[in-house]
């Protein structure tokens, strides 16, 4: 008997906003903090907490710098992060397929 698709869900990734962050990061070379904040409709504090979790898990890289005098925080997805996102999406799709099939 095959594993239930929920076994493929990761505790770190399986959260709506973290999945959103990883999805946007996977679509780009790098993405800026304020873009994520606006796209995901999150407060700065909330977004920071999610980013810290994802960076600590090795799923994102973070790079701080300046554009002129304005501080900028850029995030990019790691190879592990890309893999984790792909696995999570596959597990979610399998879950939907199992219940609609």
């Amino acid at each position, binding site marked *: 008997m095959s594993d239930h698709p929920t076994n493929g869900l990761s505790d770190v990734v399986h959260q709506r906003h973290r999945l959103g962050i990883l*999805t946007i990061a996977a679509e780009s*070379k790098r993405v800026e903090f304020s*873009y*994520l904040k606006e796209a995901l409709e999150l407060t700065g504090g909330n977004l920071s907490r999610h980013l810290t979790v994802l960076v600590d898990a090795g799923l994102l890289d973070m790079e701080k710098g300046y554009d002129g005098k304005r501080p*900028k925080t850029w995030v990019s997805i790691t190879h592990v992060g890309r893999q984790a996102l792909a696995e999570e999406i596959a597990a*979610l799709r399998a879950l*939907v397929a199992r*219940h609609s099939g």
Partner: protein
Amino acid sequence: MSDTTALLADLRKLRTRARMDRQAHAFPLFLFGALILLAPVCYASYDPWTELELVPNDRGPFPQFTPGILLKYPELVGWYWALTIVGGLWLTGWWYRHRARRHGVETDTRMPTAATVAALLGFLVWGPLFSTLLEAGFDDFDGSYSTPAVNLPILFAAAALAVAAGLWSGRRTGWSRTAGVAVAAFFAAVAFGALGVYFSHGYAALVIIAAALLALAWVERSALLTVTGVLFTGVALLVNLYNVENVFYRLGWDSGSDQQVVAVQSLLPAGIVLVVGGVVAVVRQRR
């Protein structure tokens, strides 16, 4: 289950939005379109009736970028195309970084850059290098790269390697994909160079720009840029392998022996494809 379905739909929307926000191909389309349309300015030609004895048998430092006959300043034409590719590539990279700073999301242009540089090397380095090696290795080699026994095996082997590298890189991500595409672009340029050696139209720069646009379309996941790139590639191959001035002659526009008019007729369709693609991209972005 509707929660999971809704979550997947939300993620799809986020991905589409990020993709639209990072697309910035209108600028390179206008840039290369304008540079292509301006190129005929460099194609001043000798008058074959009064100046024929002045025509030198020299195609300048970039023979791949210059037609073989009657050009007054082949060096100018060669350098124009070399700088168009290198400068256009640099400006495109700058544009994507500049736009990322303004919009907060950046397209990875490493793969198109690597593909363009590899295609440029394929055209500029391979032909002269291989001829030199043959001359050094075989006493009876007559220096002619266009000998079928020499360049047809190269054409088929390079084309096969280009296809294999392209298929391999399609299943990869990151640096391995970039490397695979660069290898594919290099061998595609070598294959085309081996075929194009029978023709001397001198528009290899258009093929390199086509490779850059197709690679950019891949990383941007843009249907519009893909369509524009494919159309442009078709036009680029046509002007390199066929005398486009014949078509214009049949339409009533005779270029005679004026190389500037031949260049206008050859480059006009390619330039128009890019400019129209750029206009459509701007209109879509503003909606």
